[in-house]
């Protein structure tokens, strides 16, 4: 532990700490462009110069390049160092285009800050400025190379940290260029982090281009709800509208970075079609009217047919508040539910995954980065929980062996061994692959719940338990379908799924459904069954902040608030409950309420749209009860009413880990029936852009989703005479759907993989994400 003195302050730091980090621990901020604690140091920018007064190397040194050593004496304020830094700024500004007023980075630009801080204001050099031609980098990232100061942060992040190769640095000397070989969409689903990481305005946020300055935004710490990881974000809102999303550092969860789905998925919150008023049989009414009407009619049905005649359906995208209010609603009224899952197979898998987690075997993403062997079972992090792939890459960079057991054509940004097998063979493969972890000391088993069933989850949990038994610090990491699926598993009391309720509707036992923040129409796998069930219903109530097809079909529609307006608690896949604060007050964005292109000129005491309640408030109202008045009271109410949530009292900045503690998950049925002869197994899988209900509303992400595609194994494709790029039609009971064919060499044979896509408005009649399609129902429509 070297002990050194920086600016007359003494500090002891661990071996290998750079001087710049040691200074930061003392609260001394040394200017930097290229140094980033996640990316390390390269010494490219020269602006972190300090003067070493005593030590092995004396004189002006780059504080990011020298390790803290015992007896070192460093001055950051020495005139020589300050002069050096001033000169660095001046030469970095030689070619700067001086376009801060029209640059989106202006206001939170490191280069701008340091230029002002260093006192540089006049360009003394009279020669011409070097310029570059910019590239189109896709709908998310705006490129402006003239502002570049060659700190190499972008390439270091893109290549080394996240493992994608299509952004690099070409040229030499005065022509160094950061970009792609040719213009085109950046391939990495983490490209948005370039915006955060670039210390100047080379990469800026394209969808929010020119919408506002950092200082005008109300910036609130948030949590991403577009997958189950619960990454930390910073929400920037202005004029009652979310404008921009950035990654927020978290020691436990995501580190520094987030994926593009999380960064650009928020546009659902202010789309024009979002429900803002109540609706009764297609007629627009006030929210209160809709809520009272729903309450009265549900009440009447309960009185006429008994409480068994009303069902309540929720989802994993609701906050813990909403979920617990729904459980309370069913407890007080005796209604059926609430059910938080659509079907038994994936529902049971997710439930089992949540219940299998305990304080011993649960690992956070940051702990996973230190694993020395990773076995991924039926999990595709890039598509299901993208930031997990970043964590796995860090583990792999540190030397971890990664093995994947999966039928899908996995494309991960790191080296791994892919054991491709069909979904029903995963169990066997897992058993045989278990010994790969025997040499490791900190193995982690990652288990997906998208295409696996509860049996495999249990098998993975048993494997981890066995490894722990043999003295290893083994961990279990399960990905869940939705942001708050874990919360749903904690609260679930009814041991049923939406399919069960649908069956009861068909049988005439249930006459009314209240669907709260769930889109059955899109998510329910068996469309024909759902259609039949909905027809038989006397009353369908939908509470949602999205204008889902179900909301359109509902007899009574009640709008609710998004996470940005209502906040809430979300429990991520490792059981970490995280509090989200509202980012802005509810109500129509000012740009919508204004006449034409500017905000209204007059003041109204009531903001239009502010009367919308959060979904949990509506749930209380449906129960005929007064909801707790404040968020704090609601949290207290939850702690009091649900034993499993009592630990919420200990919630701090890192959240708090909640565990099911011996709760039995909902029962799972036997897995899929054996695959019949002459059939291919069609697997519906999560995609990074597409299929996640909220981010599907983002226009920019839709552009990235491409065309609906089906992946085939090369041998299967050859057998059918189909080549990559062909269009094929897959015939289902309820019609034919056309896809572009993609061919892979490293996926399980006999499997077709379709990644969820916003444009696929079709649900095969199937048990769940798996469906057997007869080979003769595959028809080539068009050759590539």
């Amino acid at each position, binding site marked *: 532990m070297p002990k050194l003195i920086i600016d007359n302050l003494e500090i002891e730091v661990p071996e290998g700490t750079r001087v710049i980090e040691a200074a930061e621990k003392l609260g001394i901020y040394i200017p930097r462009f290229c140094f980033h604690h996640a990316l390390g140091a390269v010494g490219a920018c020269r602006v972190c110069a300090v003067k070493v007064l005593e030590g092995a190397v004396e004189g002006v040194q780059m504080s990011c390049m020298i390790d803290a050593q015992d007896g070192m004496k460093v001055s950051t304020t020495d005139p020589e160092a300050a002069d050096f830094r001033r000169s660095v700024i001046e030469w970095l500004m030689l070619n700067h285009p001086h376009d801060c007023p029209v640059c989106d980075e202006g206001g939170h630009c490191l280069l701008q800050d340091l230029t002002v801080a260093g006192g540089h204001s006049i360009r003394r050099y009279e020669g011409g400025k070097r310029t570059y031609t910019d590239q189109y980098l896709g709908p998310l990232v705006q490129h402006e190379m003239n502002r570049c100061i060659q700190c190499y942060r972008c390439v270091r992040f893109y290549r080394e940290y996240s493992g994608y*190769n*299509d*952004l*690099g*640095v*070409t*040229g*030499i000397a005065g*022509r160094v260029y950061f970009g*792609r*070989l040719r213009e085109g969409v950046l391939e990495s689903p983490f490209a948005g982090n370039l915006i955060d990481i670039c210390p100047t305005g080379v990469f800026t946020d394209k969808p929010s281009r020119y919408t506002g300055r950092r200082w005008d935004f109300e910036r609130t710490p948030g949590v991403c709800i577009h997958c189950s990881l619960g990454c930390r974000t910073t929400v920037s809102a202005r004029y009652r509208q979310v404008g921009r999303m950035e990654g927020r550092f978290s020691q436990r969860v995501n580190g520094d970075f987030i994926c593009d789905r999380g960064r650009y998925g928020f546009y659902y919150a202010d789309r024009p079609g979002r429900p803002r008023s109540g609706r009764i049989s297609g007629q627009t009414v006030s929210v209160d009217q809709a809520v009272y009407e729903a309450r009265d009619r549900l009440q009447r049905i309960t009185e006429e047919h008994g409480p068994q005649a009303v069902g309540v359906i929720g989802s994993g995208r609701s906050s813990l508040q909403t979920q617990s209010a729904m459980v309370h609603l069913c407890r007080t009224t005796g209604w059926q539910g609430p059910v938080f899952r659509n079907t038994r197979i994936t529902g049971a898998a997710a439930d089992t995954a949540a219940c299998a987690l305990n304080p011993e075997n649960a690992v956070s993403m940051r702990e996973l980065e230190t694993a020395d062997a990773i076995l991924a079972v039926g999990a595709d992090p890039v598509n299901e929980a993208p930031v997990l792939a970043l964590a796995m890459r860090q583990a792999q960079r540190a030397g971890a062996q990664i093995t994947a057991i999966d039928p899908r054509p996995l494309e991960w940004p790191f080296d791994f061994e892919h054991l491709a097998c069909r979904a029903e063979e995963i169990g066997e493969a897992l058993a045989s692959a278990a010994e790969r972890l025997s040499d490791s000391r900190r193995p982690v088993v990652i288990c997906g719940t998208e295409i696996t069933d509860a049996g495999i989850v249990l098998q993975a949990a048993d494997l981890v338990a066995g490894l722990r038994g043999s003295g290893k610090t083994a961990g279990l990491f399960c990905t869940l379908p939705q942001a708050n699926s874990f919360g749903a598993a904690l609260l679930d009391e009814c041991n049923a799924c939406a399919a069960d309720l649908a069956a009861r509707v068909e049988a005439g036992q249930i006459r009314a459904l209240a669907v709260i923040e769930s889109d059955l129409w899109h998510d329910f796998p068996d469309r024909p069954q759902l259609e039949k069930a909905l027809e038989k219903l006397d009353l369908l109530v939908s509470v949602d902040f999205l204008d889902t097809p179900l909301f359109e079909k509902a007899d009574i529609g009640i709008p609710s608030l998004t996470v940005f307006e209502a906040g809430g608690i979300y429990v991520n896949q490792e059981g970490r409950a995280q509090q989200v604060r509202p980012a802005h007050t509810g109500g129509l964005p000012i740009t919508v309420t204004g006449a034409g292109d500017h905000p209204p000129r007059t003041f109204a005491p009531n903001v239009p749209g502010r009367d919308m309640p959060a979904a949990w408030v509506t749930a209380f109202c449906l129960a005929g009860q007064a909801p707790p008045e404040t968020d704090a009271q609601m949290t207290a109410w939850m702690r009091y009413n649900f034993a499993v949530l009592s630990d919420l009292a200990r919630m701090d900045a890192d959240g708090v880990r909640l565990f099911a503690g011996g709760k039995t998950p909902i029962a799972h049925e036997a897995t899929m029936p054996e695959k019949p002869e002459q059939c291919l197994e069609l697997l519906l899988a999560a995609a990074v852009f597409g299929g996640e209900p909220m981010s599907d509303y983002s226009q920019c992400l839709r552009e990235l989703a491409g065309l609906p595609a089906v992946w085939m194994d090369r041998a299967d494709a050859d057998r059918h005479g189909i080549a990559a790029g062909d269009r094929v039609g897959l015939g289902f009971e309820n019609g034919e759907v056309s896809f572009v064919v993609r061919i892979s060499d490293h996926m399980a044979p006999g499997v077709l993989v379709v990644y969820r896509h916003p444009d696929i408005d079709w649900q095969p009649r199937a048990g769940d994400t798996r469906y057997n399609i007869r080979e003769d129902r595959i028809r080539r429509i068009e050759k590539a």
Partner: protein
Amino acid sequence: MLPEQIRAELEIRIAEADHPQELAVDVMLAFQEAAGYLSERALETAAAMLKMHSLEIEEIATFYTFIYREPVGRNVIHVCDSVICWLDGSESLMDYICRKLGIAPGQTTADGKFTLLPACCLGYCDRSPAMMINRKVYGHLSRDRIDDILARFEREEPA
């Protein structure tokens, strides 16, 4: 695009290498040998052979002076403009060659015979001023000697 024999040779070497990347420069030079410069197609092909991203090839190609990403003449003249050569008058020799060929540095003669390029340092400081034509270095340059050398190329390859 690449003579079959050379290609086969390279592929064997790539297969034997611990990391294919280490042969990137060799592969690029082989392509350059065949076509004079590294074309877009050559870049893609090289990337495929080496199992690298074509951008990675581009990065190396644009880094090195002697890998040409733009078309060049049949003979590429590199005139050293490093300090020692400069002290020995490389500037005026460069001017001389420019006037003689009627082109500016970086350009190719109209007949496609010569491309004139500066070079950062050829490592021939002991025989400065120096220039390099087609990877062969000529030291102790003077105007007469330049005339001789260029005349030799004119002779060897009649227009």
